[in-house]
């Protein structure tokens, strides 16, 4: 009786790795995804690629989406034959996941329709919707755009909202702002190194507006930072840059200054925040506090911060800071108390003739004041371009200080922040329009407009943007706002960027 071979077979079935025809050399594909043939495998061997990993890279066998599931064994067998070795002795190559086939739908199929990207909601999301907010996208966030009443258009709504803030009081959900806890004995020193202005001597119970630069001297982000205790700061960032700033701070602490005893933690989701702004802001907020005296002008001066309680015992932080240019407070509570906070505030604000306002009106208010946002601090601008050069400390080093002073960035003809009025006050122009000398409406012009609005305070259309040399270079001269894709040219005049209440009297009220 014949002896059985290994595995029990009397006549074992041997694998056929390649069909060979006498007198012919047909093309025999081994890897049908990368069109690798048996001839390619043997060529690799002839070229001296005797390692299976080298053969793989020389031929690209096994490097397609199947990661060799169809052709690797055949390729290894051909290589083994060429090398005169057993297949196991040749070895295998590293293949990438998934090990077992996964349908493309399983990887991306959930990302369709309403679940294409996750929606990020503020703690006041439902409350805002219940009050008639029309939402808009701000990255992954939904934020109130405007609160139309009685069939208002967006234009009617934002003009009413901005007017009401200037005349009475308004409340705006600002919860999406980035918020970072900066803690530790070296926290003040850390902030001093990253901000252009000084923070090491900021008193407990005070906030300060700060700007941070990139290493190359360009503006990275801005916000206010509040000193809550000796070693405890709350930094705010723009909504858009919250994640980027957080990553930047971690990079600095982990790689550049590991000796600093500082921890940074994102608390963007921990807090629900609102701005209460307008001449009646103090009245409205004080009526919502357990101790109404805590926000008198004396008790809480401009840029002051206090921890107290809203009625009903809700703990809160209040900072007297203003983006709108009005007397204003930002109130933060633990996110779960966001809606109860709004109920309290809106009850008093509505009774005082106030309004809820969204991003559109917020934009109007800040353009009137000449306050910058990401539209102006777009990664190409310096402190001096934005008219904020005086903020830079001359007494301490900070990131970006050296390179912001390189010759190209301090040229007199750099674009500088300006306001823009239509010469004919009844006209309008678009954000994105280029600013050109009359008769020279070509190329990129001398500047550009970053944002526009109807100004309730001034009674006509205004814009904010940049122009070479700034206001001084164009004072008294006409300029053309040209927008060849969308409208005819508009003659404009350049004005200083702080177009309303330039001295800031209203927010110090």
């Amino acid at each position, binding site marked *: 009786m014949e002896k059985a071979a290994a595995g029990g077979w009397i006549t074992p079935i041997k694998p056929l790795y390649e069909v060979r025809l006498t007198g012919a050399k047909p093309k025999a594909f081994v890897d049908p995804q990368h069109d690798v043939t048996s001839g390619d495998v043997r060529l690799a061997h002839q070229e001296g690629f005797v390692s299976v990993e080298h053969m793989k890279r020389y031929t690209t066998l096994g490097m397609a989406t199947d990661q060799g599931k169809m052709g690797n064994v055949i390729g290894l067998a051909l290589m083994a034959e060429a090398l005169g070795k057993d297949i196991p002795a040749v070895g295998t190559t590293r293949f990438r996941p998934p090990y077992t086939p996964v349908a493309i739908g399983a990887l991306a199929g*959930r*990302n369709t329709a309403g*679940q294409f990207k*996750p*929606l*990020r*909601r*503020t*703690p006041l999301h*439902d409350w805002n919707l219940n009050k008639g907010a029309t939402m808009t996208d701000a990255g992954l*966030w939904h934020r109130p755009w405007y609160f139309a009443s009685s069939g208002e258009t967006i234009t009617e709504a934002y003009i009413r909202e901005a007017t009401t803030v200037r005349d009475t009081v308004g409340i705006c959900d600002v919860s999406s702002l980035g918020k970072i*806890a900066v*803690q*530790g*004995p070296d926290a003040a020193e850390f902030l001093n190194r990253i901000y252009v202005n000084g923070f090491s001597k900021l008193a407990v119970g005070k906030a300060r507006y700060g700007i941070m630069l990139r290493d190359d001297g360009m503006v990275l982000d801005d916000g206010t930072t509040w000193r809550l205790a*000796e*070693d*405890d700061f709350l930094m705010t960032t723009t909504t858009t840059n919250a994640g980027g700033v957080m990553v930047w701070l971690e990079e600095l602490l982990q790689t550049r200054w590991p000796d600093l*005893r500082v*921890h940074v*933690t*994102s*608390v*963007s*989701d*921990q*807090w629900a925040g609102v701005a209460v702004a307008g001449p009646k802001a103090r009245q409205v907020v004080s009526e919502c506090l357990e101790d109404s005296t805590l926000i008198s002008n004396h008790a809480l001066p401009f840029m002051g911060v206090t921890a107290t309680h809203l009625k*009903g*015992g*809700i*703990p809160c932080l209040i900072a007297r800071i203003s983006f709108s240019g009005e007397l204003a407070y930002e109130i933060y509570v*633990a*996110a*779960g*108390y*966001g*809606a*109860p906070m709004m109920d309290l505030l809106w009850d008093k604000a509505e009774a005082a003739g106030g309004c809820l306002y969204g991003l559109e009106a917020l934009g109007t208010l800040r353009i009137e004041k000449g306050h910058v946002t990401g539209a102006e601090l777009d990664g190409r601008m310096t402190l001096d371009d934005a008219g904020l050069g005086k903020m830079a400390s001359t007494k301490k080093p900070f990131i970006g200080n050296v390179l912001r002073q390189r010759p190209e960035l301090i040229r007199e003809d750099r674009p500088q922040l300006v306001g823009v009025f239509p010469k004919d006050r009844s006209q309008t122009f678009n954000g994105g329009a280029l600013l050109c000398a009359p008769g020279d409406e070509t190329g990129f012009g001398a500047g550009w407009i970053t944002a526009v609005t109807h100004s309730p305070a001034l009674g006509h259309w205004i814009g904010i943007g940049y122009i070479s040399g700034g206001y001084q270079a164009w004072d008294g001269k006409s300029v053309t706002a040209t927008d060849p894709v969308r409208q005819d040219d508009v003659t404009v005049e350049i004005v200083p960027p702080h177009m309303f209440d330039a001295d800031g009297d209203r927010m110090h009220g």
Partner: protein
Amino acid sequence: MAEPLSALGDHPVAPQLANAMITLNEVHPFSLIQIAAWPDTIANAATYGAKLAGSEQAPGAGQSTAGQRGTLLRIEPLKWWMISDRPQADCPDLSSDTGATLNLSDAHTWIKISGAKAETLLNHFLPLDLRKGAFPIGSVASTAFHHVGVKLWRDTAGYNLLIPRSFARSLFEHLMETARQYRESSD
């Protein structure tokens, strides 16, 4: 004082999906305290954290320990999270020589996932090997759910997911929709 609201709004949970296959429960409210150490104070901060949680010792990397007052999760080399289903108004003090504490109780939404198909459900979203040999009871992971950073840990009852509050409802809707296919047949 007013009651704090959940980020999930009015989403029904248990009535729709409570069956032997999958149970999704939100824990709300809860307390979450971060304890952060300096590189040379890890031992002291660990002792502090263990005492806070009422456990004998603090967990090492990728681990959690359950104590009498809460569960301590080691989420980073220098940070622990002490989580408890008992809300806590004040943040405990820690000398800045030793580290820093931070109240994060409102920054996340806590979802418990249990049942025979809990692991399968999570594997629809999380790129982790959740089999008992690879992710035993007491394991902790920082991972991504639909590109959102989340924390996952396993206890005797099942899995626990901490989702950043602002993303919670959106990701919870994902979980609910996917979990429906595992609803136990009523036949």
